[in-house]
């Protein structure tokens, strides 16, 4: 089976309306997002957390993340567009500039 792709920036072209933020605009945007595996970036902490989750957290019900998350480490500053009623909007931090396991 193919080795799972590591956490990296992916690109997807969609209209602003398709972002799901409620804006009605047919302008397109190249959305950059983060996806991929972070197993290679785990620490002892993560192994311990995984064990604790399996062994039951000494009666606690705290939720913890099982390992590093593939997340944006920086966002593209802002993205401005004209909506279908000819009004300008600017959205901040909607597209990832860099990704990393954090």
């Amino acid at each position, binding site marked *: 089976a193919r080795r799972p792709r590591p956490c990296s920036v992916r690109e997807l072209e969609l209209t602003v309306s398709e972002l799901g933020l409620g804006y009605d605009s047919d302008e*397109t945007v190249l959305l950059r997002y983060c996806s991929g595996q972070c197993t290679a970036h785990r620490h002892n902490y993560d192994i311990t957390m995984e064990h604790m989750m399996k062994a039951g957290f000494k009666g606690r019900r705290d939720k913890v993340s099982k390992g590093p998350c593939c997340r944006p480490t920086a966002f593209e500053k802002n*993205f401005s567009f004209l909506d279908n009623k000819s009004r300008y909007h600017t959205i901040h931090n909607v597209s990832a500039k860099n990704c990393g396991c954090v």
Partner: protein
Amino acid sequence: SGPRAQSEWVDCIQASDMCNQNPHCSSRYRVMRQCLVGKEKEVMLDNNRECQAALEVLLVSPLYDCRCKRGMKKELQCLQNYWTIHMGLNEGGDMDDSSPYEPVPPNRHPDAFRLASISSGCPDAEKNCNPCLDAAKACNLNNSCKKQRSSYIAICSKGETCSKRRCHRALRMFLDRVHPEFSHRLLFCPCQTEGCAERRRQTIVPDCSYIEGEKPNCLELRKICRQDSLCRSRLADYLANCWMPPHTASTCPNQDNHQACLSSFTRLIGTEMTPNYVDNRFSDWVISPWCTCEGSGNQEEECMNFLHYFTNNTCLSELFHTHTHACISNVQSITVCQQCARTFRHSLFRSTNTMFLMFIKPLKNRITPPESGRDRLRFLHFVTL
């Protein structure tokens, strides 16, 4: 001798350096700069012996014949050096300036084809195509264009708190840094719907960059523009590359060089003389700076003539004609005083180029149709019996 080859022009920064290396020239250059400071420059130039002597020396220095390259590094400084000499030479009054930029090379390859990519219209089949939306999409998919576009929009669309000065600077940066293939397409996309035309009108975020309280008189706006080296230079360049007197054969200067006109029009955006579409009409559109000729008093004709550089520009309107079958807003000259139109009982239809004249009953029909342009010459031949 034909137009100078591109490289022959000395730019006005080099010319200034050359002058400064020559004591005879540099001293006069310093004097001339003093002569042009403050409001009394007209008096100083006319009556001050030192100013006149300085000008005579500078006339034979490299500074007289220098020009600036569009988009060059230190462009503003180059333009300031240019005007140091040419402000003194200008014939005064309201004569239009000559452009400080290097003349546009002759139009070797008719750019109609390249224009097609900028202003590709809508295939008739595609009903709701919107070339201006496509232009925005193309920009958003290009990293640099998207970044620069978002930057000026974010600055210009701050509502009541927008700063016109900062917005103009951001617009100039966008137009300087982004390839004309994207910027011209946003500005000159041909429309066949109001929605598209409104998007086109919104390109420069007019609420901040264009509209500002009551419209000044256009002659006042021209005066303000001429007090700023950048605006003065780009207005002169626009007139040099976009304005053809009404009854000349070609529609654009420099052998119908539309591209040169588009570029110099675009470079006016972000100055005091920022032009824009005045409304969202898609076919009969009108482009104008934010000014009016109302209240011109006895200078209404001069004001209208200046306004016509934008509202009656055959080079600009011709540009779209081939691509959008838009009716040319080829308005001859909008009759300066409506009263003239009425007294002579002929009417200029805004969108068509036909004119009905009271005419003397001809024995023979006309030889040549009336030409476009202000003095509609008519030839009526009679054969004496």
